[in-house]
């Protein structure tokens, strides 16, 4: 026997391989199907928010709309502009799709229902999901188009910045759990309460950063239509565009399931998960779907930030706050007073109110009446 | 010379001139219906009333003779009110026929109603009902309701043609124009009354309901029906020649033209027109295939070179430019006679119609062309009207290169055949029976698209035969014409034609069908 193989803790049995393979196929298909439904849901929800109906013609309630869209994407002319860097142009949509698909491998859907039970799960998630930016950057670079490149540059800067916030805000959770293992994080929440309550600031920062990570409103600068046509996928059409599109929705699913895992107790809900793994999956999916709804809801409520605002929020507010949260959490863990983690958000809230009151007092009101402009000289 | 003051302008006049003549000569427009310079003064329409100082009532400008020191106001309040009253009276019984009336758009009643008329009628009674669509012969339709009884048409038949087919009948608002002769007009100038009619009472059967005048494109040209060369205005729309009306020229046709000339445009609209050049497809008679222009030009040059034949047989309706280009093309190929063919009619009269039907017969003769007496082989054949060059002549000519207008006139033994534009589709000079050189002009709205000018084609072929030759445009051809003493003696005018249209790729027709 190969000595290297023999040195492994325990070589997986044939059944384990089969089970993992089945799970991979299942999860991959569920993911893709969920992505398709999400596209439909986005359109229906946005329509309902705007007093419209949205697509309701294909299948019951328009559920098959995504199938029709897919048909359209497949049969559309696959334009490869002559000015692009061809191999990179073709590769980029795949590069952006694959990380989104792969990240889901370590998410525990229910106790034991997990494709890969990595002991460095959270690190894996952060590292793989940050690869998604390569697809966008390469695609925009290969497009050889100004708008696409601007979108790509914005995207890479934005994603790198918010990844920092994302990672550091997750540290609070990991400090409390004492493990990088995502299964342990969920188990910890199941036994002693969701991190939503124990790490409120981290939750807020992580959620916001995940919006930025997935290029969703109010942080969709990379594809800001009014400024950049369509951002990094300006030059893409047909299935290549569909892949980018799908990658964006899959990234949403991954982000939602990550937030569920880290802060909303994963598969746990008042002990209902003890009914069996199916109940765990159902609970997990319910939470994820709710978060996805919030994604859509936020998108159709908030306008887009300006790019400088986006960056200053990240580096001047979220980053220091995330660092402070790590310090406070460490203090809370060391002193054994978990409630200490609430000090920061409460203090922030107080400071915010105070600043607003002060600002209101200093509001100079409307500017003084402007003097009439001098009459235009009529000399000829 | 005595002077008269009209609208503040001091004008000289010859004794005997009427106020309207003096005013018109000075460019002062006085409204009129019944007055026509070519007819006697009737003074019955009363629209030309002007104010003459020291005269208590307005006077009709067409009848009152100018007198020394007379002061006339054509636009005073009195004159305008007088016209306004006349218009109101004329419109009491005039039907609201404008939507179906051919005259609409060039109707004096419309123009003056617009200027002097009332928006509504004050007459409480229903308009008179008179016969409508009465045939006056086969060519003219009379509508008594529209008639304003100016008697221009009656005076025309009495004074110009002296045939007196028309007269006024009945009285008051039952007055109508009636035909004194039963059935047909005796005069071949009857359709002039359609032009004379200031309203739409007399309409031409030929042009009836063909087109509203505001859609039409008008070109000043010369009739080629006979050698008289009456000056005409060609009206056309959407590729179709629709009508021809006489244009005043005191030296040629005064204000008139004959009916035969007026309706002699039909061959222009013929569906059998030749539209594309043809080249030989085989040795058999009539064995042709269609070719594009450049290919046909090359084929023509090859055929001429191979035949070495010279000589021209031309329709006497061809322009001077075409004749001289054909002469030089044939000379570049070989030696031969220059001959022309034309129809000789029997309907010539002392007024306008002449027996020689070739519109440019005098020009051809001046260029050294002689009348063709029998068939003889030629290098170049030009046929605009099939009846001008009889079949025996054109087939017997066995031409190398033929320019024909109608596909039915193609000589079966020709080597290359080019479509020939009709006189309404090309620019050129014609010499009339009196030796007067007059231009025909290309109408923008007549004929098929992208026909090339025959002069340009002939010059291209000549250049292909003789690469050292200088290409000539209209000016170059005119210089060649002036080099012929007999032509120069005619006094070639310096006519400037509109630039030839740039050849376009068959543009989509602007009209939907």
């Amino acid at each position, binding site marked *: 026997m190969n000595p290297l193989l023999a040195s492994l803790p325990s070589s997986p049995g044939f059944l384990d391989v089969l089970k993992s393979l089945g799970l991979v196929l299942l999860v991959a298909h569920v993911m893709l199907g969920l992505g398709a439904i999400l596209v439909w849901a986005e359109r229906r929800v946005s329509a309902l928010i705007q007093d419209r109906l949205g697509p309701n013609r294909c299948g019951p309630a328009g559920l098959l709309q995504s199938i029709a869209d897919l048909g359209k994407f497949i049969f559309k002319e696959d334009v490869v502009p002559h000015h692009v860097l061809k191999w990179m142009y073709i590769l980029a949509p795949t590069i952006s799709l694959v990380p989104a698909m792969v990240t889901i491998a370590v998410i525990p859907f229910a106790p034991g229902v997990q494709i890969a039970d990595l002991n460095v799960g959270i690190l894996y998630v952060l590292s793989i999901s940050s690869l998604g930016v390569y697809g966008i950057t390469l695609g925009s670079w290969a497009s050889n188009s100004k708008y696409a490149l601007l979108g790509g540059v914005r995207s890479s800067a934005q994603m790198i910045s918010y990844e920092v916030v994302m990672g550091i805000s997750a540290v609070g959770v990991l400090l409390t759990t004492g493990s990088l293992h995502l299964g342990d994080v969920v188990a910890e929440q199941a036994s002693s309460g969701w991190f939503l309550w124990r790490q409120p600031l981290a939750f807020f920062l992580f959620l916001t950063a995940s919006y930025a990570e997935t290029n969703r409103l109010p942080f969709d600068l990379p594809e800001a239509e009014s400024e950049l046509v369509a951002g990094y996928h300006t030059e893409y059409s047909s299935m290549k565009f569909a892949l980018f599109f799908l990658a964006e929705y899959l990234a949403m699913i991954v982000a939602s399931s990550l937030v569920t895992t880290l802060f909303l107790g994963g598969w746990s809900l008042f002990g209902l998960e003890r009914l069996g793994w199916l109940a765990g999956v159902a609970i997990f999916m319910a939470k994820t779907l709710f978060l996805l709804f919030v994604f859509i809801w936020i998108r159709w409520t*908030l306008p887009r930030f300006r790019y400088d605002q986006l960056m200053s929020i990240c580096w001047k507010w979220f980053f220091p706050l995330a660092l402070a949260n790590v310090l406070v959490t460490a203090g809370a863990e060391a002193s054994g007073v978990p409630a200490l983690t609430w000090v920061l958000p409460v203090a922030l809230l107080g400071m*915010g109110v105070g600043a607003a009151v002060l600002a209101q007092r200093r509001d100079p009101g409307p500017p003084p009446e402007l003097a009439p*402009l001098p009459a*235009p000289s009529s000399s000829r | 010379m005595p002077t008269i003051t009209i609208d503040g302008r001091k004008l000289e006049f010859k004794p005997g001139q009427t106020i309207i003549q003096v005013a018109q000569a000075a460019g002062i427009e006085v409204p009129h219906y019944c007055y026509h310079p070519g007819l006697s003064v009737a003074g019955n329409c009363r629209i030309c009333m002007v104010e003459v100082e020291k005269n208590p009532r307005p006077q009709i400008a067409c009848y009152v003779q100018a007198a020394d020191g007379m002061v006339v106001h054509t636009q005073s309040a009195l004159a305008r009110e007088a016209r306004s009253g006349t218009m109101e009276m004329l419109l009491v019984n005039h039907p609201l026929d*404008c939507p*179906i009336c051919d005259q609409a758009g060039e109707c004096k009643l419309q123009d003056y109603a617009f200027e002097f008329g009332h928006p509504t009628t004050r007459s409480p009674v229903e308009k008179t009902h008179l016969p409508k669509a009465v045939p006056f012969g086969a060519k003219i339709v009379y509508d008594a309701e529209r008639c304003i009884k100016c008697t221009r048409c009656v005076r025309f038949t009495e004074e110009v043609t002296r045939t007196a087919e028309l007269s006024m009948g009945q009285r008051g608002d039952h007055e109508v124009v009636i035909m004194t002769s039963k059935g047909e007009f005796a005069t071949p100038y009857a359709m002039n009354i359609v032009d004379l009619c200031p309203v739409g009472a007399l309409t031409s059967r030929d042009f009836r309901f063909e087109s*509203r005048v505001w859609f039409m494109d008008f070109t000043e040209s010369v009739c080629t029906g006979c050698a008289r060369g009456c000056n005409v205005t060609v009206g056309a729309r959407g590729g179709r020649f629709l009508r021809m009306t006489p244009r005043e020229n005191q030296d040629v046709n005064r204000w008139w033209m004959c009916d035969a000339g007026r309706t002699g445009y039909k061959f222009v609209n013929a569906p059998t027109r030749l539209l594309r050049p043809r080249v030989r497809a085989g040795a058999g008679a009539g064995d042709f295939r269609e070719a594009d222009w450049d290919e046909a030009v090359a084929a023509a040059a090859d055929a001429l070179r191979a035949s070495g034949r010279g000589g021209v047989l031309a329709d006497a309706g061809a322009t001077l430019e075409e004749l001289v280009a054909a002469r030089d093309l044939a000379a570049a190929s070989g030696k031969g006679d220059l001959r022309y063919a034309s129809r000789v009619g029997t309907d010539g009269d002392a007024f306008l119609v002449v027996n020689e039907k070739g519109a440019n017969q005098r020009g051809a003769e001046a260029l050294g062309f002689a009348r063709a007496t029998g068939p003889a082989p030629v290098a170049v054949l030009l046929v605009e009207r099939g009846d001008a060059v009889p079949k025996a002549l054109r087939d017997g000519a066995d031409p190398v290169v033929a320019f024909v207008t109608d596909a039915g006139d193609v000589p079966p033994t020709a080597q290359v055949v080019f479509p020939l534009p009709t006189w309404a589709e090309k620019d050129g000079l014609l010499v009339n029976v009196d030796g007067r050189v007059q231009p025909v002009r290309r109408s923008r709205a007549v004929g098929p698209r992208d026909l090339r000018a025959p002069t340009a084609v002939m010059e291209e072929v000549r250049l292909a035969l003789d690469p050292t030759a200088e290409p000539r445009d209209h000016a170059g051809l005119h210089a060649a014409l002036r080099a012929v003493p007999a032509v120069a003696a005619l006094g070639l005018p310096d006519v400037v034609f509109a630039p030839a249209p740039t050849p376009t790729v068959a543009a989509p027709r602007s009209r*939907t069908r």
Partner: protein
Amino acid sequence: MAATVKTIARRKTTLKERLLFPAIFSGMKITIGHFFRTLRGKRVTMQYPEERWEVKDNYRGAPALVKDDEGRPKCVACSLCEYVCPPKAIYIVPGELEPGNRVERGPAVFNINMLRCIFCGLCEEACPEEAIFMSKEFELWGEKRSELVHDKETLYAIGGVRPDPIKKWSHK
């Protein structure tokens, strides 16, 4: 003349607005409110083929020719609509009618190319005979371009009958 400047008094921002988050939440409240309201059936979308719009009288649909209440075609082919038509969608060949008719002239061919028509209504405005009207017809479709060139029969079929109290040609 001096340019006049109008100063618009701006409202002071309130404390709630300055705090940002209340504004965000109230925005989300509004959107979710609309979401549930639309879900309960209050919507602006019309389910077109099943639900139909009540076409107003001043609607400018496909131009059409009308007959009077005696069934006589009113058009006399005066070509004014053809003249006034900005996109040149109208093509008319006038024809002479039988002597028995009240009017001597009518259209031999009357085509309106609906691919060109811009529904401006100038034809209706120009018509001296009140023969052409903008109908309420808006469902214009065809499988070939030629099907969208409405000929005389189609135009009379769309236009139908429009009572004419004057009947000018019968007692003109």
